[in-house]
């Protein structure tokens, strides 16, 4: 459930994302999930990869600014209301705030996957584990 996400600072101009993706490709790092947040001047690319250490090394070597953050990767039933019932409502009831959420590359199955950043990691993890244990 808990995974390490890499956030990379990118200027908001053509070619910057391409540069990051080239760096990762050359390091043979495969992307599992990618989300972009942007402002007028800059953006943050958030990625989940299989080999975080190798990716971080390649990013640093390329001179990019990056940081790692602990986030949750959670399976979601691929049905209407799945995200709401499995994750969003239980966390809200437990007083956990979701700061952002994006889709993880889905496998061809009945379950989708999402990545979420929350303000209280352990609490959220507990809530979601309990939920799964209860057969949600």
């Amino acid at each position: 459930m808990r995974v390490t996400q890499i956030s990379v600072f990118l200027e908001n101009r053509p070619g910057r994302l391409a540069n990051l993706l080239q760096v990762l490709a050359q390091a043979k790092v495969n992307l599992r999930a990618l989300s972009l947040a942007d402002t007028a001047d800059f953006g943050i690319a958030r990625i989940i990869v299989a080999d975080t250490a190798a990716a971080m090394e390649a990013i640093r070597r390329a001179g990019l600014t990056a940081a790692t953050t602990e986030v949750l990767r959670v399976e979601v039933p691929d049905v209407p209301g799945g995200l709401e019932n499995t994750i969003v409502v239980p966390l809200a009831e437990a007083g956990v705030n979701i700061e952002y959420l994006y889709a993880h590359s889905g496998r061809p199955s009945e379950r989708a996957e999402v990545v979420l950043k929350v303000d209280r990691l352990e609490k959220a993890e507990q809530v979601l584990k309990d939920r799964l244990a209860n057969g949600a």
Partner: protein
Amino acid sequence: MIWDRKHETMSRSDLHALQLERLQAQAANVYDKVPFYRQRFMEHGLTSGSIRSLDDLARLPFTYKRDFRDNYPLGLAAVPRERIVRLHASSGTTGKPTIVAYTAGDIETWTEVMARTITSGGVTKNDVVHNAYGYGLFTGGLGFHYGAERIGATVIPVSGGVTKRQIMLIQDLGSTVLCCTPSYALYLAEAAAEMGVDLRESSLRVGIFGAEPWSERMRKEIEAKLGLKALDIYGLSEIIGPGVSVECEHQCGLHIFEDHFLTEIVDPATGTPLPAGQRGELVLTTLTKEALPVIRYRTGDITQINIEPCACGRTIARMAKPSGRTDDMLIVRGINVFPSQIETVLLQVEGVQPHYQIVVDRQHTLDDLEVWVEVSDTVFADEIRGLEALERKIRDELHNGLGIAARVKLVEPRSIQRSEGKAKRVVDRREVYSS
């Protein structure tokens, strides 16, 4: 028109005699009253009586902007505090501003040179002067105010900002004279056009523009858009403020009030005085200042001097519009900005690396100052709001420290060009100097 015919049209020989008398008195004064000068004089083997001719001026040591900083706030004053009636301030090269002081006598001198300045534009007591120079620590507002009152004109102390109201007042009060920075003059014209007002149809007929360099092309643009005669004025707070020199109606150089400000042009590299007509750095000595006399101040402005009499009748020397700077000082919206000041502010913000670039542009006629700062791992976190907070913090600190609104742009590491030796900190996209 000439306000002080005696001092503005005196023969060169009479002027030189007056200058020598005043220089001798001033040199003795600073030697007696200012420890800084006494020490400098002694280092150069000089005493209070070393000036026997105007040529001896070249023996005196130079004074630099940094000397104001090293003697902050008032270590260069030549009078006790109780004789100081006014303080103004301008930018320093680092965190502290440059403080300048005036006695009642200095205010009188300043008022007179500003009366001469404004009269040089053909302004009389029948005029209405719209004074949009900033009032406050900046010398522009009050300098023009006192001079315009001295000649009996009606002064509107509008100061800076609230542009729409300014345009309304110009129309309603029948202003005939506009005093502001040249870039603000263009901004006024543009803002007026947006309001459906054509300032060429207003009563404005003369503009006295300064506090920042501007090109001949910009003069033509201002004259065309505002329908007035645009005159250039030069001054600096270390010397007195506005009122050091001004153009007359012939627009052929700025007449320097040489009975108060002794003028030299020196080679910026060696400090060697250059003959009249050669281009170099302007060096000024205040002959009559009481509170803060300054000996051979290196202005950093590049210009040349013409001592031929002017068609207007003045015999005082004329300086060309400054054509550049000897240092990296920028003048943005009339405010002097040194890259070193910006660096000082940036390095006070936690985690900010000393890799930055200053980009100055003239967007929509007003100067735009952008500071690019590289984002390093130490300040970077996963959150947009953290980065936005960093931008805001840098912007606020720059505003607090420099009094200037800058746009802060976060950029990737190593995106700012590294160079060997002196980094290229400033990209100035404006054309402020005529080539």
